[in-house]
């Protein structure tokens, strides 16, 4: 579909992105996220820009205020004259394939700011709170030439779907994970669970204008203290009470995000994380290609063999996978 978008050649698209053309950024994002004809050449051309921008992921349950927090963070970063790109992911319906991408409503005050680029993405079937093509999308943003003639936005923020307890993929995608929570979302036992709680580099307890915010902060701190490292050099995870509504604590939150970025550089941990990102990018692509290839091999003959009990799913799946190229 969308043949009109295929009109620009890959080469021209890349060069226009590298010259700071936001229309080209937008088209490039469509090509790599749609995986429409010729997208591979585009994705390949943008890959070398990996690592140009610090990437910050925001995860947390639906309604915890991720988009509103993005909005206030963007305001603060723009006051300092730094450019920001945001990729915000919302769920695709498993029933209709449609989606309502609603994160944008919270940041629309920045719609006319040339230093802000916001793109909504649908999960299109991927679990884990992200879209499968997120890596290619990030590389496009890392190639964009900003007003300061620098390659890559000063900041790239990724907002996950907000599926709740299990959206940990973001930790293999970005440099710094901010976990957003809010009062009344559970006690210290909730905070002790595996899942999103264990991938946070920084905690933001949003809605600090509500009562019980202190209790929420204390619960998380309690849970974190159970796993304190003896290594004094290790990153100690900060927990901040913030309010996207009033702006309270946002400056401190940003300071922590920046401190984490500095920690990654000083400790050498950044190299570890970037490697992890590349591994994830490669493995997710491999698994998608295998899956597509293998599923194309499933035929009615196989189903017939199952109906007639002439074979079983395990034997057949092994057989199908053997032929995968």
């Amino acid at each position, binding site marked *: *579909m*969308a043949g009109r978008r295929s009109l620009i050649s890959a080469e021209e698209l890349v060069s226009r992105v590298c010259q700071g053309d936001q*229309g080209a950024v937008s088209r490039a994002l469509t090509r790599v996220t749609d995986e429409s004809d010729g997208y591979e050449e585009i994705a390949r051309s943008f890959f070398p820009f990996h690592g140009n921008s610090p990437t910050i992921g925001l995860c947390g349950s639906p309604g915890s205020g991720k988009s509103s927090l993005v909005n206030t963070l963007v305001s603060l970063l723009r006051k300092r004259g730094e450019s920001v790109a945001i990729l915000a992911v919302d769920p695709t319906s498993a029933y*209709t*394939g*449609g989606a*309502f991408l609603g994160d944008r409503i919270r940041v*629309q005050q920045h719609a006319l700011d040339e230093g802000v680029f916001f793109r*909504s993405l649908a999960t299109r079937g991927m679990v884990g709170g992200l879209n499968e093509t997120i890596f290619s999308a990030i590389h496009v943003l890392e190639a964009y030439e900003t007003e300061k003639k620098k390659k890559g936005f000063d900041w790239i923020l990724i907002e996950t779907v907000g599926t709740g307890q299990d959206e940990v993929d973001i930790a293999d995608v970005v440099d710094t994970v901010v976990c957003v929570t809010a009062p009344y979302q559970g006690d210290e036992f909730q905070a002790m669970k595996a899942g999103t709680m264990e991938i946070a580099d920084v905690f933001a307890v949003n809605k600090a204008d509500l009562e019980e915010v202190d209790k929420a902060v204390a619960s998380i701190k309690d849970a974190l203290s159970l796993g304190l490292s003896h290594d004094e050099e290790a990153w100690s995870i900060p927990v901040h009470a913030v309010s996207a509504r009033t702006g309270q604590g946002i400056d401190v939150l940003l300071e922590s995000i920046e401190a984490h970025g500095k920690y990654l550089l000083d400790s050498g941990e950044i190299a570890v994380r970037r490697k992890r990102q590349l591994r994830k990018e490669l493995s997710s692509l491999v698994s998608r290609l295998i899956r597509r290839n293998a599923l194309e091999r499933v035929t009615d003959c196989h189903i017939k063999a199952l109906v007639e009990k002439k074979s079983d799913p395990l034997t057949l799946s092994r057989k199908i996978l053997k032929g995968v190229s």
Partner: protein
Amino acid sequence: MDNKNAYRILIAKPGLDGHDRGAKVIVRALRDAGFEVIYTGIRQTAEMIARTALQEDVDAVGLSLLSGAHMTLFPRVVNLLKENGLGDVLVFGGGIIPEEDMIELKKQGVAEVFGPGTSTTDIASYLTTALDGASKQA
């Protein structure tokens, strides 16, 4: 690879009227019809809508307006889209819009205008037909 991705539609509320139940009904209906739908929220300028369309790279922009300013705002969005290199984005509208205005708006580049009482299924199938046609042409 899989080329059957959903069409992306921006639903926008230009101008000062804050009555967006209609816009929300359309958002919901299009979502359920398999579109990826982005909503701007209320009180948007034509400039904000055009830039949002650019960043989201949408296939169509739907404008909802009940205040009577459609003759000013709809054509302005159409023109700004053109200026941003998005002349091929389908623009459609809805709201309380008199028949004679509908004719004039179509002359000025609004592809279709839907009045009160239109079935949401009709809007979804109109979009599918129009966008399928546009992508075949390209």
